């Protein structure tokens, strides 16, 4: 089938051809002509006119032609339902309808500026709507950070930012959660600099806020204290050698472990364990 509409497409007149090709008629031919020729050419070429006032495939109330196509052809697809408000928001200058509408509009307006040939523009538009569809179908929940651990910390940090606004003096939830996280990941190489880089947080800012809620200790001091406490706990289990304990508590080597342990407790791990046995 042939479909015809006005020239210089931006949103709906690119999104509708995409929808027609992907869900209604893969063989469809799309034709762009000047506004005042759409109806006469439609008749002449036996094409379906769309996205122009006075035809069946057009806007109804707040809804754009993309919405009408979905309804008319009874297409049931959850990803498409997520895309429709984005298209509608971008097409009707109601960017508040969907968070992605303003970005789609900016990219579409720019593409239209860069590609003056409507058919070339349609080709680019297909890439964009295929991408939006893949996002809607598979990636809507995905965040840009790639490590699950990063995601956890990111959530904590977001909580931290929120609480910052209406802050009281009691220990905020983010601090408690960060405590738990450190506890769970004590055997991995946690560095504030790395974490803040991955999280796009200013390291000095986080470390400043950190000490307020972690016994006036810096991030590094707190981590070391946690590791030593964990080491002491593990020492009560005779099955672990001191080498294993150093490894399990995130120390890179035995001598580092011994040095830090002595700083915190005044004795070496070996002596500490010996005293433990006496008791």
């Amino acid at each position, binding site marked *: 089938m042939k479909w015809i509409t006005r020239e210089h497409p931006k949103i709906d007149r690119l999104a509708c051809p995409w929808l027609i090709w992907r869900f209604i008629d893969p063989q469809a031919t799309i034709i762009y002509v000047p506004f005042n020729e759409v109806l006469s050419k439609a008749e002449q070429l036996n094409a379906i006119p769309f996205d122009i006032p006075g035809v069946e495939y057009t806007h109804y109330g707040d809804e754009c032609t993309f919405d009408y196509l979905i309804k008319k052809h009874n297409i049931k697809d959850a990803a498409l339902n997520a895309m429709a408000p984005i298209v509608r928001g971008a097409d009707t200058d109601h960017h508040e309808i969907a968070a992605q509408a303003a970005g*789609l*509009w*900016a*990219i*579409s307006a720019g593409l239209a500026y860069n590609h003056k040939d409507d058919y070339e523009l349609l080709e680019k538009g297909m890439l964009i709507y295929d991408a*939006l569809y893949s*996002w809607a179908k598979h990636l809507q929940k995905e965040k840009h950070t790639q490590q699950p651990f990063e995601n956890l910390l990111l959530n904590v940090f977001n909580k931290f930012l929120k609480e910052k606004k209406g802050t009281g003096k009691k220990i905020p939830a983010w601090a408690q959660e960060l405590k738990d996280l450190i506890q769970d990941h004590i055997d991995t190489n946690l560095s504030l600099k790395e974490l803040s880089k*991955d999280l*796009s*947080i200013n390291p000095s800012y986080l470390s400043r806020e950190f000490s307020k809620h972690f016994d006036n200790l810096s991030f590094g001091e707190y981590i070391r204290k946690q590791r030593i406490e964990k080491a002491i706990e593990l020492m009560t289990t005779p099955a672990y050698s001191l080498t294993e304990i150093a490894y399990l508590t995130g120390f890179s080597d035995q001598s580092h472990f011994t040095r830090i342990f002595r700083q915190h407790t005044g004795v070496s791990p070996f002596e500490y364990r010996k005293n433990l046995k006496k008791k």
Partner: protein
Amino acid sequence: MKWITREHPKIDRIACPWLIRKFVDKDAEFIYVPKERVFEKAKELGAIPYDIAGAEYTHYGDQCTFDYIIKKHALTDTALLQIATIVRGADTDRFDLAPQAAGLWAISAGLSYNYKDDHEMLAIGIKVYDALYSWSKYAQTEVHTWNNKT
């Protein structure tokens, strides 16, 4: 110059090549390799590593690599500065930074899903940033109403 970074680019590792080629080095060549091989390959090929922890061209605080290139090369194009905020928002999950960030993220994530070849992804991504740039520079005041006969 050669520029090298981690494979499977989404936002910053597409936006930076666009920025470099358009404003810093027209003849730049871009290389994507597995994360753990970036520094080794950079040395071998005499390439500049970017958008990876430990390189000069990387994130600083809440600023992404795109921001760093703008600062380092003292670029002052206002359209570019606007795009920087959008890129930062999309790249660091801070969609509140710019209204366009969430849309850029959705489209970029979807493109990366559809095009598994990094260089194919880059070629398409460059078109997206060319579009954002044109929008910012020339088409920003335009309001889209569907029946304006143009």
